Structure formats: structure tokens, C-alpha cells
């Protein structure tokens, strides 16, 4: 019995070795055949979003036809843990040549693998703040797509009231628009002017609060100082502007619902025409499409004062491609990345096939999604703010600490207490980080 088992296992192992060899030799054969015409090269791209798997494979096929370089697209399926899977891929003996990083924190693990992309041709077509993935001052990340948020508006309601969304560039403009709509709320059948929520703590703690950190000169430095507890929030004039903006959002939303409105209900209120504005980003478009929205829409900034930054919207990069510098085909990998950003075929892939908002200003194609269009316009005009909340979102400082402080402010409206609470929270956060 035991003997039979041992021989069975041994046989299986031998078979698997043979199979491995067989596979390899078959592959070599295939490549050998190709090399008759030209040298066969293959790069491996380890993709994060399974939704764009097919679009990416189609692009890869066209790239191979044009350049003779095969691109093998491996996708991390739904519910897959990309970070863990990437570790496994790196162990297979065939490291991916192009892989994805979702933010700078991934550099702590894979920093030794990334190639310098500073001199690539696409760099010139990207706003510098979207090239956030840097190592030792060198650009190492190719922005896969961008996302942006602000106040999404219902054009038909704004038209009825006679508000021109293009003209909303300062706090005063925004307040005037809110007031004008509020005055005719009943006639327009609105529940509230704006669809805002404090229940979804990422909205108030990450997105809204980002305006405070980013709408200023040198936001990177400021956010670092703030999180290190070096900023006196109570003496910061922009903090007062920020409090005023939050108060405006709260005063003109459905107060009874602020702490119970979830994301779906928030989007639905706007999508069914019950509010004129929605505090969200371009990612809501598929949800709005499901609601069969017919009105035209766009995005106005969360304007907190009358500085030039008030007319900007936060635009960020949810994921980057990085090139593996130890790869045999590092130049071919760069070429593929270039192909996405610099050719008409690549642009068509981003906009028409993968439905992404490209970070590149040389893209002339127009997306059909009005929110993507709005984001591209802000990006082309350079009216963008950075995403600073990524610096604290891993610890959920925004969701666990800033959000309840904002909710308290919604109830008592006490600006001094609000600012003091933010100040104290930042200092406690800095202290806890220092201790750990």
C-alpha cells in the first residue's frame, strides 16, 4: 500500500517536471519560429483591474502586430489581493516586466525594482502633480488613469435658475448659486440644494478635508507639516475658509439625513433630480447611468475662498504602472507604456475601450461620459489640486477622527471648537505615529 503510494507520488512529480519542460520547449519552439522573421521578445504585464483585461489584451495584440513584441497580460481577478499576488509573481522565476503600484507606500516593498522613467516622452504631457510616484526625485510611475471630484451639478436645474456653472470659481460664487437655487427649491421639486453625507466618513474625512490641505501654495509641505503636528490650525486663515465651506455644504443639504445617507442613497438623490449638486467624483457615472439620468452634468469646484486654488478640483491617480528595472526587456516594457500614452491606438484604448480618464494632455479623443470630460478639461487647463489624503488614509485618520469632528461641527456650528478639535487631532495623530 505504502509502496504504491510512494511510487504514485514519485510518478506524479516526474510527470510534472516533464510537463514543465514540455511546456517550456513548446514555448521556445514557438518563439524560435518567430525569430526566423525577427527576434521574439515577450514582456509580461501584471494588471490590477480585471475589468480592463480584454481591452488591454486587444491593445497588446495590436502592439505586437506593429512592433513585433509580444505582451502577455496577466490579470489579478476579482477579489484578488494584488499585493500578495505580486509577491507570488515575483517568485515564479519570470518576474512581471510591468506591474501596478497604488501609491507611494508600495515603494517601501518594491522600491528596489523600479526603473527610472523621468526621460520618457509622455512625462511632458502630464501635469507634474500627477507624477506622484517618485523615488529619489525620479519619476518611476506611469499614471494609469486619473479620477477627480468636486460638486457634480445637474445642468438642467442650474439652467432653470439661471446659474452658469462655468462662472463658479470662488466661495462667493458658490454661495450665491446655492442661495439662488435654495430660494426656488419647492418650485423645482428639490429636497435640498446639495447631496452631501457625513455617514460615508470617507467623503467628509478624506475628500472634503483634502480641500483644506491642498487648496494652497505648496500643499505637499503643508500636509506633511499638518500630519507632523507642526501646524497651528486655529491661526490658519485657510482653516477658517474651510470651516465656512463645510458649513455651507451642511446648511444646504438635507440635515435630517446627513448621518444616515449612504453612498447609494446620496447618489440616487442627485440622480433622481432631488438635489442640484452632488459631492462626489467621476466614479459615480456608472451609478448615474443605471438610474437612467437624462440631464447634462459637469463638475464645479469645492471653492473655499477667492484664491486661484478655489477654482481647482482635486485630481489624483489611483494606480501607476512601474517598469521592472531588472527585466531583460526593460526597453520593450518602456516602449509598451509609451505606446499607451503616445499613439492614437493607445488613446483609443484608454477612452473607448477601458473607459478611463487619461492623465495625458495630448489625448484629443473625447469621452462620452460627461464627468470624465469635465475632469479632462480641468486637467488640460491645469486647474487641479493634489490628493493629500493618501498620506493618512492607510491609518484612516480622516475616516476615524476628522469625520466625527466634522459631524460635531454640523451639529453645533462652533467654528472655534471645530478648528481646535482638528488641531488637537493632528497633534495626537503625530504623537501616536511618533510612538509607533
Amino acid at each position, binding site marked *: 500500500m505504502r509502496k504504491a503510494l510512494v511510487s504514485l507520488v514519485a510518478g506524479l512529480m516526474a510527470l510534472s517536471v516533464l510537463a514543465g519542460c514540455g511546456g517550456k520547449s513548446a514555448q521556445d519552439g514557438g518563439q524560435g519560429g518567430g525569430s526566423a522573421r525577427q527576434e521574439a521578445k515577450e514582456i509580461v504585464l501584471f494588471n490590477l483591474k480585471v475589468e480592463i483585461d480584454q481591452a488591454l489584451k486587444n491593445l497588446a495584440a495590436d502592439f505586437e502586430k506593429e512592433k513585433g513584441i509580444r505582451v502577455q497580460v496577466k490579470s489579478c481577478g476579482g477579489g484578488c489581493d494584488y499585493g500578495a499576488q505580486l509577491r507570488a509573481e515575483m517568485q515564479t522565476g519570470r518576474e512581471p516586466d510591468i506591474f501596478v503600484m497604488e501609491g507611494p507606500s508600495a515603494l517601501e516593498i518594491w522600491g528596489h525594482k523600479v526603473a527610472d522613467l523621468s526621460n520618457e516622452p509622455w512625462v511632458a504631457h502630464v501635469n507634474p502633480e500627477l507624477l506622484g510616484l517618485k523615488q529619489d526625485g525620479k519619476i518611476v510611475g506611469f499614471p494609469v488613469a486619473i479620477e477627480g471630484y468636486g460638486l457634480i451639478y445637474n445642468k438642467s436645474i442650474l439652467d432653470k435658475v439661471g446659474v452658469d456653472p462655468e462662472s463658479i470659481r470662488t466661495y462667493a460664487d458658490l454661495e450665491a448659486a446655492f442661495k439662488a437655487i435654495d430660494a426656488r427649491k419647492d418650485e423645482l421639486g428639490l429636497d435640498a440644494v446639495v447631496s452631501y453625507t457625513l455617514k460615508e466618513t470617507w467623503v467628509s474625512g478624506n475628500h472634503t478635508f483634502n480641500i483644506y490641505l491642498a487648496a494652497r501654495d505648496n500643499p505637499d509641505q503643508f500636509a506633511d507639516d499638518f500630519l507632523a503636528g507642526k501646524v497651528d490650525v486655529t491661526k490658519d486663515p485657510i482653516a477658517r475658509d474651510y470651516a465656512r465651506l463645510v458649513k455651507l455644504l451642511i446648511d444646504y443639504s438635507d440635515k*435630517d439625513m446627513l448621518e*444616515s445617507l449612504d453612498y447609494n442613497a446620496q447618489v440616487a438623490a442627485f440622480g433622481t433630480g432631488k438635489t442640484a449638486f452632488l459631492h462626489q467624483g467621476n466614479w459615480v457615472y456608472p451609478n448615474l447611468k443605471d438610474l437612467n439620468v437624462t440631464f447634462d452634468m459637469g463638475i464645479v469646484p469645492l471653492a473655499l475662498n477667492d484664491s486661484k486654488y478655489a477654482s481647482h478640483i482635486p485630481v489624483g491617480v489611483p494606480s501607476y504602472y512601474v517598469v521592472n528595472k531588472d527585466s531583460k526587456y526593460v526597453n520593450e516594457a518602456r516602449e509598451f507604456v509609451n505606446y499607451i500614452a503616445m499613439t492614437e491606438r493607445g488613446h483609443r484604448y484608454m477612452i473607448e475601450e477601458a473607459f478611463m480618464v487619461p492623465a495625458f494632455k495630448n489625448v484629443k479623443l473625447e469621452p462620452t461620459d460627461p464627468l470624465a470630460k469635465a475632469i479632462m478639461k480641468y486637467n488640460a487647463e491645469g486647474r487641479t489640486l493634489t490628493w493629500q489624503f493618501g498620506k493618512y488614509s492607510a491609518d484612516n485618520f480622516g475616516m476615524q477622527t476628522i469625520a466625527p469632528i466634522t459631524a460635531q461641527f454640523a451639529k453645533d456650528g462652533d467654528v472655534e471648537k471645530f478648528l481646535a478639535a482638528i488641531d488637537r487631532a493632528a497633534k495626537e495623530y503625530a504623537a501616536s505615529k511618533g510612538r509607533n
Partner: protein
Amino acid sequence: MRQSTEAKVVFWGFLSPTLFAFLMIIVIPFILGVYYSFTEWTGVAGASNAWVGLQNYADLLREKRFFYSFAVTAAYSLVSMVVINLVAFVLALLVTQELKGRNIYRAGFFLPNVIGGLILGYIWQFVFNSALPRLGDLLSIGFLRKSMLADPRTAFFALVFVVSWQYAGYIMMIYVAALQNVPQELLEAAAIDGAGPWQRLRHITLPMIAPAFTVNSFLTLVNSFKQFDVNVSLTGGMPTTTFAGEPVFATELLAMNIYNTALAMNDYARGQAKAVVFFVVLAVLSLLQVYFNKKREVEL
């Protein structure tokens, strides 16, 4: 002699899988958890886990949010223990009467317990946030228009309500079993002696089912204290309220507070310190409760 060796082998052979699982998923994590509560570990592999002594426990004393969670959990446990047992006992009395289709009632009351807490929480969130306000609009009932989950006090009772709805059926089954074990001859004898229904309940049924009370109040107390899934899905800790001048999540019960500290805020060691405190308090409370309830039981 040989026989006893074989018995030993069989004994350990059958015990070892369970023992292994028990060690791996209860005993070792528990000891590790206590150890981590004395370190500064953040929960990230490779991060420093230097010994900090009682620092984490000292920090807890200054954390108002933790005190609030403790207080609200205690209140919640007390209220839901009473409500669940009351509802369950009344239901049990009902379904042990000579009713038509009482098995259907039993199954019906038990059914919510079969649904997972997370799903149930989301369903009731929809009821509280969308269905009831819509009904309030249609019927012009003012107080229904505002979601119960939007106010700290009503959100608390919404949580008690949903958990009672879920759990009462299960507790009811234990009462049903106990009620069926009350000897009929005692009840008949009392009836012949002229005892009314209330007297029979008060002086015969209740003392006879005292063990069920012990079991059920223990179960409900411990489960309410450990409440997590319905809490997360129904309210997620929302809305917020002010406690000792600081904003806190009004319905953030202890288990959720520990989860948030350890996993959302990446302060694993402090979360573990909270968990240790939680364990000690819960152990003392439940032992005390079992001790006092045991004294009331009668043996036949």
C-alpha cells in the same frame, strides 16, 4: 496492559485534531494577543514590536472614545438582555399554547436567526433609511420621516430592536424546551387546588424553568457584549455624538471600537490592550451572573 495503551492511542488520536484546532485558533492567538498588548506593534509584518510595558493600558485611561464605547456597550447589553429575554419568553409562552399551526409560528420566529447578521443589518438599514421615511411621507406621519439611524438615541434602540428581532427566536426555542419539561401533574394539581393561570406561572412554571433563565441571560449578555456584525452593517457606529467634549461614534460598541483601533487606525497593540480589558470584564460579569442565577434554580 496492551488494552490500555490502545485506549490511550484511540483517546489521543480522536482528541488531537480538535485539540490542535483549539490550540491554534484559540489558545495561541490568545496568548499572543496578551503579549502584543505590551508592545508597540502596529500589525504590519516587520514593524517594530518593542516591549512598552503598561503604556498601552495607561493610554486607554485617557481615551474618552473607549470609555464611551464601554458605557454604551454596558447600556446596550443590559437593555437588550432584558428585551430579548422578555420577548423570547412571551413568544415561548404563546407557541406552547394550544394554537393552530404553532409549529409555523415557531419556525417563523426562529427564522431571522438563520439570516447572517451582516445581511440582516443591511436589510434593516434599508428599512430605517428608506422604507420608513417613505411611509412617513405617504401617510404624513412626522416622526417617521427622519431615519431612526440619524439620531444617537433612536439609533441605539434601532440596534436593540434589530438584534432582538434576530436573536429572540433562538432564545425562544430554549424557553420552549424548558416549558415543555415542566411536569403537567404539578400544573394540574395546582389548578385543582384553585390556582389561577398567573399563580401557576409565577409559582410553578417560573421556578421550574429557572435553569433556562440562567442559560439565556448568560447567552444574551455575552452575545450583546460581543455584538459586532449587526453593529457594523446597521449603523457602522453612526451617527456621531459628543461625549465629555469630544466627538465620538454614538453606536460604536466595544467590539467595533477594538476592531477600528487595531485594524482601521493601525494601532494593533492598543487594540489588543482593549481586547484584554474587554475579556477580563466580560469574564467577571458572566461568572457573577451565572453564580447568582444558579442560586435561584430549584432541583427536582
